[in-house]
Structure formats: structure tokens, C-alpha cells
């Protein structure tokens, strides 16, 4: 440090007067042009710096000079290009409006082109700079044991024991145990506070909004439907419950598909789960059957119906259901048939529900039983 040029001392308007016996004011960092390189390179706490060397030709070789000159021009060209592209980006932002698909696509194209050009030319310039202008330096750093040396470990051990002893933590179990007791409820507090995030599920997953006499509405038009209006065999439509046409929470469970068959195709065996009737021909009307649209796997809408094979397919995970026999599973991960909606016609001839589904719709859950 002593060979540094004395400049203005530390920052501040006036260098303080030097009191005898105190160190001289240090020169400003980076302030001197006469900093000895070797001084700066003195190893810091074992930070070995290794040797530096410039590979290849001497720097004053004409080929090297020519090469670096060219590299310099290319780097400068890259940075200039980045400048121009950046200006182009601002111009595109100002000049090109949005608010329609065509304009958005045009704006996106020019903004994206100019921005990527600016970014890529900055990157390219920097890369050529470091590769072709900076001298090739290879340095070596020593590794030190990560494990502290024995002296430090012993000192740590000793301080820890002394501190613990001073704290009386070991000696006074009453304090220790009541402290732990005192913090215990607070640890549970964050979980307790989360309780009001939502209602308890209760039995709500077992029920839908279908109820006796509720009309089946065609999704989209939201009109009720008679068996005669749904007479083309092989077709499938989506049904929503009347009064809940746009209620997403309700539709998540209550959406239904209606499929029309040719006479004789439909053979739904009468099935029970325990004592509950879950499937029967009696719930169909004129070879029309209503199944839940919600896949019993993880709840996607089963939207694909293949007329020729009578297969209902869930597009998410390809659970496949046989429509003619009560939507029984023939392939894929779904564990249950699609529940059948008990259906009849009302006095006006419209299709209505006889009741809610007799078993839970949608994905399985622990309490399903």
C-alpha cells in the first residue's frame, strides 16, 4: 500500500488532519493509476491465483493484430445492430397498434423480431469479445478442506458447552419442559388458522342438483326435450339440469349425456350396490338412456361417443365405457361405471329426472364406501 500515490485521501471534502499515532488516511480504491499489479495479486488467505499466460502468438505479431482488429469490428457491429434493433423495438411499440387479431400478430412479429435481434446480437458481441479480444487466461484455485480444523472444532465444542451450561438449559428441566410446552400450541396455530379455507365436504359429494321432476335441458339451447325430439339412433347430446344451466359448481357433478339406441340394442341389467338400485332398464325412456357425463376416474367430461361400437370414451385418460350395458368399464383406469340417471317423462311429455343419482358421481373418494 505504501507505494500507492497519495491522492485525495478518503472521500469527503477535506482530508482529516492526521493525528500522531493513527494510520495515515488510505488512498481511494481504484483511484491510483500506479497500483502495483503484484501487490493486488498477493494471495488472500490462501487464495492461490496461479499463473496467467497468453497462449499462441505474441501479442505484437501482425497476424494477432489483424485478427483482433477484425474481432473488434465484428463486436462493434453486433453492438450497433443491438442498438438499431432496440430502437426498432421501441418504434414497433409506438407505431404498431393492437386491438384486433391481425394487428396483434403484426405487432407480436415486429416486437419479437426486434427484441430477439437486439438480445442475440448483444450476446453474440459479448461472446466474440471474450473469445477473441480478451487474452486467454487460465487460473488455478486451490481447494481447502471444508471440514474445520481440529482447533476450531474443539473451540466450538467448548463454547457450545459453556454457553449451554450458562443458559442452565440442561440443569433446569422445569424451564426447558415448560418452554417446549408453551410453544407447542403455537406450532399448531398456522394449521388451525387454515380451517376456514373452505366448508367441510360433508355428504355433498354424494348428491347432485337432480331431483324428482327436474327437467333435462339440452346444453347450449337450454330447452327441454321430448323423446320424440331425440329420435336419431346413435346420437349423443349433453344435458344440464333445469335451473342450473350456468352453475359451474352444480354442473361439475350434474352434467349428463343422453344417448339414443335402436330398439333392442340397450340391455341394462338391473344392478344393486348393497340395497341401492344403481342401474335398470326402467330408468330409460324409448331406448334413451342418461348417464353421468363426469368420468369416475378423475372427473373429466366423457365427451366422445363412438356410434358403431357404442363406446363412450373419456378423452383425458381413455377410460372406455360400454354404453349398451349400463356404461360398464371396458378399458382404462376408471373404477366404476358411469352412474345412470333415473329418468322418465312428465305430463307434458318432456324428459325429467325420477330422482337424483343413486350413487356418487365423478371420482372416487375415501368416504364413498
Amino acid at each position, binding site marked *: 500500500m505504501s507505494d500507492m500515490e497519495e491522492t485525495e485521501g*478518503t*472521500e469527503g471534502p477535506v482530508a482529516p488532519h492526521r493525528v500522531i499515532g493513527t494510520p495515515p488516511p488510505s488512498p*481511494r*480504491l*481504484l483511484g491510483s*493509476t500506479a*497500483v502495483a499489479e503484484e501487490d493486488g495479486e498477493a494471495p488472500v488467505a490462501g*487464495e492461490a491465483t496461479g499463473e496467467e499466460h497468453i497462449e499462441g502468438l505474441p501479442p505484437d505479431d501482425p497476424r494477432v493484430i489483424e485478427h483482433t482488429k477484425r474481432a473488434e469490428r465484428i463486436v462493434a457491429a453486433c453492438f450497433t445492430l443491438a442498438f438499431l434493433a432496440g430502437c426498432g423495438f421501441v418504434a414497433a*411499440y409506438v407505431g404498431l397498434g393492437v*386491438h384486433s*387479431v391481425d394487428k396483434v400478430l403484426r*405487432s*407480436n412479429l415486429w416486437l*419479437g*423480431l426486434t*427484441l430477439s*435481434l*437486439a*438480445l*442475440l446480437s448483444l*450476446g453474440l*458481441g*459479448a*461472446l466474440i469479445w*471474450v473469445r477473441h479480444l480478451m487474452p486467454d*487466461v487460465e*487460473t488455478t*484455485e*486451490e*481447494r481447502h478442506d471444508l471440514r474445520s480444523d481440529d482447533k476450531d472444532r474443539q473451540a466450538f465444542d467448548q463454547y457450545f458447552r459453556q454457553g449451554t451450561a450458562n443458559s442452565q438449559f440442561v440443569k433446569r428441566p422445569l424451564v426447558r419442559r415448560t418452554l417446549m410446552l408453551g410453544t407447542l400450541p403455537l406450532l399448531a396455530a398456522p394449521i388451525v388458522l387454515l380451517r376456514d*379455507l*373452505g*366448508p367441510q*365436504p360433508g355428504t*355433498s*359429494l354424494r348428491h347432485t342438483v337432480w331431483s324428482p321432476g327436474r327437467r333435462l335441458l339440452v346444453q347450449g339451447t337450454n330447452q327441454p326435450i321430448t323423446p320424440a325430439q331425440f329420435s336419431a339412433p346413435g346420437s349423443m347430446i349433453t344435458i344440464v339440469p333445469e335451473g342450473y344451466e350456468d352453475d359451474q359448481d352444480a*354442473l*361439475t357433478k350434474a*352434467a349428463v349425456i343422453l344417448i339414443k339406441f335402436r330398439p333392442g340394442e340397450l340391455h341394462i341389467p338391473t344392478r344393486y350396490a348393497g340395497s341401492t338400485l344403481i342401474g335398470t332398464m326402467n330408468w330409460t325412456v324409448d331406448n334413451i338412456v342418461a348417464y353421468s357425463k363426469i368420468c369416475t*376416474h*378423475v*372427473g*373429466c367430461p366423457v*365427451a*366422445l361417443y363412438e356410434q358403431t361400437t357404442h363406446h363412450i370414451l373419456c*378423452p*383425458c*385418460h*381413455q377410460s372406455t365405457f360400454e354404453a349398451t350395458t349400463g356404461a360398464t368399464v371396458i*378399458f*382404462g*383406469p*376408471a*373404477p366404476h361405471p358411469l352412474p345412470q340417471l333415473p329418468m322418465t317423462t312428465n305430463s307434458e311429455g318432456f324428459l325429467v329426472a325420477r330422482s337424483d343419482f343413486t350413487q356418487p358421481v*365423478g*371420482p*372416487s*373418494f*375415501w*368416504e364413498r364406501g
Partner: protein
Amino acid sequence: MSDTDFDVPKALSGTASWVDDRFHTARGFRVLMRKVFPDHWSFLLGEIALWSFVILLLTGTFLSLFFTPSMSEVTYHGSYMKLNGIRMSEAYASTLRISFDVRGGLLIRQIHHWAADLFMAALVIHMLRVFFTGAYRKPREVNWLIGIGLFSLGLLEGLFGYSLPDDQLSGAGLRIFEGVLQGIPIVGTYLAYFLFGGPFPGHDIVPRMYIIHVLLIPGILLALITAHLFFMFHQKHTQMPGKGNTERNVNGQPFYPYFMAKGGAWFFFIFGTLTLLATFATINPIWLYGPYSPVAISSASQPDWYMGILEGSLRIMPAWEINFLGHTLSLSVLIPFALPLTIVLGGAALWPFFEQWATGDKSWHNINDRPRNAPVRTAVGMAAITFYGVLWAEGANDVIADKLQVPLYTITWAARVLVILGPILAYVITKRICLGLQRKDREELLHGYESGVIRQLPDGEFIEVHKPVNEEKRAVLEAKKVPAMLPGPGTEDPNGVPAPASRGMLGKARAFANRAFAETIPIEADGHGNGHHGNGHEVTGGEHEAVGAPGSAALPAGKGDEES
């Protein structure tokens, strides 16, 4: 006048002095500036993830200025005419606004989405590099675990992020997520109802996902990334084997200016490439999907790539549900949800410790392995990739079926077989390849490489001249290390006492695993030693478990070298 003899502007030198007077920074920066970064292409992979994360923070902040995280219903009257008059959530409407009514909004949205996909991809490739080169070994196990944590959190962050626009595609994904949650035993329905604030979809999930996506998870990610970089800095980089590279040094270029310039260039390249992708490759065009409706679905619905393994697991699983004391255990959902990721991520987390246990190697490792020199590790890695890959591809089985005109069920059945057989085959084949490459290495080391020069001998015979490998190559080849062979089951010392480590079930399992790890092609013809020709491999601090009974190991494996 030397190169370093120039005036530093007063603004800089004054500031540096001012800061140093107060924060003692000169010393720290001096170390930082000289910090050595090894120059190997594979070390750039983690940096891709880092820069993608930075870009995600930048673009995400922009998006948050315009996005409305609300599920209140509005009628759309914006610039996208096809959805004019349609009722939708505010979240979806504001995403349309970002796309069509905010200048640069579409570009930034797409950069954000591409950056998320790249972030996860870079994480995976970086982790594969670390795994296959053994860079996770002591002392870097914690950083390996942090990496697995980053990947796991990234999955959740991505899922919540792409679900925010409340479009048809992501809504279907969210419904699947909810269906899976419901299937968790005992607490499933409660978890689902608490997360969604009641029945699906409710009105709470978007704002809740939003705060988790923009604050909670990014905060944790940022903390973990900081810790990851700090540990890497503190423990210093590993390096590939090579001339002059020892366990006790790091060779490379200093941070200032070399790595700083290269890192900066790399950032610009990644940002520029993501911008190009966002400009020319449309991603997540939510306006085509429409607002979410629980009764609608489109076929060929695929999540973002990193969720593919979960999607494929759900698809591959045959129906299986059991009734347990009057309760439903939905195994068709639980197994695909929990098992594959547990195998892959849990296996990855345990691997460093398993390897230490099986090899008895507790010394530090700063020189990476070439994958061929660790055949068991490489083979297990390839088996994991195969397992992951089959499930991942199965996640797009409908698309594959459509493109290849193969029946859908055939593909699912093929995947069901392959997911079991594939990893086994991959393990066996990879191990053979590794040992084959080791043989080739030995050939090169002992007899030189084929120079391509054909010479005719006086008696008319043609031979190809072999030339000795150069010093650099020799250093690479000789850096090979083989785990010590532990005593096998039933091994006895000269007094007839069985080796303690080989007793019991666990001991037998360990000996079995150890035999696989120790299998190698010795690089010297006599089968002794493995290339420690005084090239600086003094390993200290090794707490090598000395369980091997003297003379029981077929391969000495340089133990004297490993132990201090």
C-alpha cells in the same frame, strides 16, 4: 505503460471507496473477481435454468400488472371478436386483454410460458449431467437435494401458473388435480374442499393459486436458488478429469471479466432464443380453448411437458379400487399420482447416500467421473430415464395413436409392458456399453489409438500403426476410479471369522450392491491399480470405511490412495 495503467473514472473509484469504507467489500470482491469457473459445456446447463428463472421473474412481474386473479363472471367485449358477448371469468378476460389489448402483452406472455418450459427442461438436463458425472457426491449432497426440491416446486409452480388463465384446457387439468386430491385417503375430500373453498370449481381457486404462484413458491425458489449458488460458490465447482486437474484444485477462467462476459452473453442468448420462440412458435393460445366449462373437453388435451409423466401414469394405470373397512381406496388414482414421482425423485434424493453405503466411499470428490467409469450409476440413470420416458410418452398416447395410426389400446398396453421391461433392458444394455467403452479406454492407454496409418512390413504384412495417446487424453483416461470391493457374503478372514459387514440381510444386500459397483475393466494389463501415476490424487479427509478384509478384494482399487 502497461495495460493496467489507466484512469478509473472518479464515479466508479469514489463509489468503490465509499462502499468499502462502510462494508469492507474490497476483500470480498477481490476473491469474487478471481473466482475460477471451469470451462466445460455441460456446466452451462444449470445456468440455463438460472437465467430462465430470471426471465420468468421479469416477464411475470409485467404480466401481474395486467392480470386480474378473479373468478367473478363478466361478459367479454374485448378485441377478440370470436368470444364477444361470452360469459367468462375475469381471469380469462384479463388474459385475453393481455394477449390482444396490451402492446407486447402476447409476446411477454409467450416468453413467460416458454421460459417456464425451458426452466424445467434445463433443470432436468442439469440434474442428469450432475447425476451421470457423479457431481452430487460428497461434499455436494445438499446441493443435489436442493435441486430435487427446485424441480418438485417447479412442477407445482408450473401447474398453478398455467392454470391461472382459467381456460378450457387448464381448467380440465385443474379438475384432474382436484379429482386426484379427492382420492387421497382420509383427508382427500377435506384437502380438495379447503383448497378450492368448497365444491369444484368454486370462486376461490384462481386467487389462491395466484398468490401461491407469484409470491409463495417463487419466494421459496429464490431462497433455494440462492442457497444452491452459495453452496456451489463456497464448495467450488467440480471439474471434469483432465491434465492438471486434481482433487485439490480448480482450473478455469476467473469470474472477472471472463465468466461475467460469458454469463452475460449466455443470458442474452437464452433471452433472445426465448423471444424468437415466443415470436414464431405459438404456445398456450388460450383464446382458441375458450373459457372453462366443466361439461366441455377437447380431445388430445395435453398438459405442459413436465406434467406429462403424471398424465401418462394416470393413463397407463388399469382400473383398481379396493374397499377398505367401508372406505374407498382409489388405487387407480393414488398409485399413478404418488408412485412414479416417488420412484424418480425419491430415488434421486436417496441415491448419493445409497451409493456411499454400497461403495463404502466417504471421501470427497471434486473430479467428476466419466459416465462409463461408473457403470452401475450410469445404468441406473438410463433405467430411470427409460421409466420416466415411457410414462411421459404415454401421456400423449392419443396423439401417438393418431399420428402413427396405431390403436390407442395397443399403445397403452405396449407402455404397460415397457414401463417394467424398458428400465431393466436399459440397465443391462447401458452397463454392457459402459464396460465396453472401458475396454476401449484400456486399449488406448496400453496400445495407443489407431492412427489410420497403414504400413507394409518387409514380409508383406499390413499393419495399422498405433500411436500413444497424448498427455491430455492420458490424464483423462487415468483419472478413472473404482469403488473398493467390500467383502462378499460368506467371506472369512484368515481366522475363519465372517466379515462383520457382510452379515445379516442388510450386509448381504450391501455386499451384493457393492459387487455391482466394483465391477470394472482395470486399465492396467495386470489388473492391479487403477491409474494413480502420481498425477496429484492425494485425497485427504477421506473417512473411507475400512471394511474390506485384507486380500479379499479381487481389485485393490487404489485404496491406499483414498485413505488418509
